[in-house]
């Protein structure tokens, strides 16, 4: 299952965002940010303590089951008293949850997390981005490994000169996407696919902002 992967904002940024907000309500999310230990019950509790130490009054907190879901309004209603007492909402969900909550309450929202990517848990505590939703899928020519996502530069004609020992120039622990693709294509006897010159990508393949109306 793919998840929204988040990271807590640095204290300094949170402090700046909360500078003029003295009464806050905290939201966590029982789905993605619980999985990533960035917005589950434990982290909400820790945030409560952190904000209290900064002299904020925490009017209450809750961990919504799925912050981005339509049913979130029921959770909001259940805590309406405590929410109303707060001047700002500190939200420990991904940006989808933040926007969902913001659209339903006339309150200032403060995201406590940065949303990094849509990814998958590939090992214990390890999350990887698998798709950047570019709108022009090339997986059929790359052995099912996405260079738009897995190559730091999103190159589609093979590796750059910065790769070394099968790793990426930006991180010696990160695999070079094109070495992986080469190996995969070699394994399945399809190296000719890599030899085919790919014209420049359509960077407008992904609608910006993304919006679509299904026909029929």
């Amino acid at each position, binding site marked *: 299952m793919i998840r929204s992967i988040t990271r807590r904002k640095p204290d300094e940024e949170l402090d700046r965002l909360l500078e003029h907000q003295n009464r806050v309500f905290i939201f966590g999310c029982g789905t993605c940010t619980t999985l990533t230990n960035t917005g589950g019950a434990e982290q909400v509790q820790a945030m409560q303590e952190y904000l209290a130490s900064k002299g904020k009054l925490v009017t209450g907190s809750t961990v919504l089951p799925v912050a981005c879901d339509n049913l979130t309004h029921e959770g909001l209603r259940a805590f309406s008293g405590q929410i109303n007492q707060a001047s700002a909402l500190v939200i420990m969900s991904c940006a989808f949850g933040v926007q969902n909550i913001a659209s339903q309450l006339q309150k200032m929202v403060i995201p406590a997390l940065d949303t990094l990517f849509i990814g998958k848990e590939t090992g214990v505590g390890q999350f990887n981005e698998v798709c950047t939703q570019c709108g022009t899928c090339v997986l059929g020519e790359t052995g099912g490994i996405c260079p738009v996502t897995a190559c*730091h*530069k*999103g*190159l*589609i*004609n*093979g*590796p*750059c*000169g*910065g*790769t*070394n*020992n*099968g790793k990426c*120039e*930006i991180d010696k622990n990160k695999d*070079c996407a*094109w*070495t992986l*693709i*080469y190996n995969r294509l*070699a394994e399945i006897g399809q*190296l000719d696919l*890599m*030899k085919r*010159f*790919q*014209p*420049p*990508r359509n*960077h407008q393949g992904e609608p910006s902002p993304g919006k679509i109306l299904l026909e029929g």
Partner: protein
Amino acid sequence: MASKFKQALDQGKFVVTSEVAPPKGVNLEKMAHHIELLKDKVDAMNVTDHQSSVMRFPSLGAALMVKEMGGEPILQMTCRDRNRLALQADLLFAHQRGINNVLCLTGDSVVLGDHKTAKGVFDLDSSQLVAAVRKLEKGKDMAGNDLDGAVSFCAGAIVTPEANPIQPQLIKFEKKIEAGAEFIQTQAVYDLENFKNFMEYARQFPVKVLAGIILLTSAPMARFMNKNVAGVTVPQEFIDEMASAPKGGAIQKGIQIAGRQIKQIVDENICDGVHIMAIGKEELVPDIMAAGGLL
């Protein structure tokens, strides 16, 4: 008319190129000095483009200066900082101002440089940029629109003969040639036996190859490159030789090693020329050429 550099390549003479590094700032004195010193000695000078993703005086401006001073510039263009509109526009401008050689590069990652939070563009890659040059030469832009006046370039690209693994790099190399690269300047090569093997393979393609020579300036610098520069391997014997240099004599030792390599390349007719990179010490290029029997 073919560029002077292109003519040199076509004549089959042993071609020598070196680098000009634009400064960080507007004081062009040192660069002008290097251009003056080298313009009549080398066949062409590569002008680097925000080398290592460090913001500098633009390669286009510095290439113009080479031209104005009577030298032969090779404009290096990376795909890191410009999308296809900007790259094409700069190619139009370069041609119009008499810059007729271009080296197409993907470009280092932004995060390796000094503006680490900038956006890396990479709208195109190096092979696509070569193809774009060829399209502009046909009087069309990349979108297929007619140009009022076409360009003409001697276009090249790079390869890393010591990359590990080499096979994916060779596929990219072939794509660059298929896209229309006429010359290839290589990443530094030190192991000439390995390079000979690469050349045996490369000779089957209609492309001129200039071997990359990076001046070793000290044993620690050589070790640093081994650790940090992708696709560069300085053999232990060279590191030992650098370490054996008397105090203050490391640079001379580096010049000797580079000269020896150049001599071997010429004597054994290994490839079509050399690209001498004396990173930050361009004033030593004539000494390296002399040590290699080229002056």
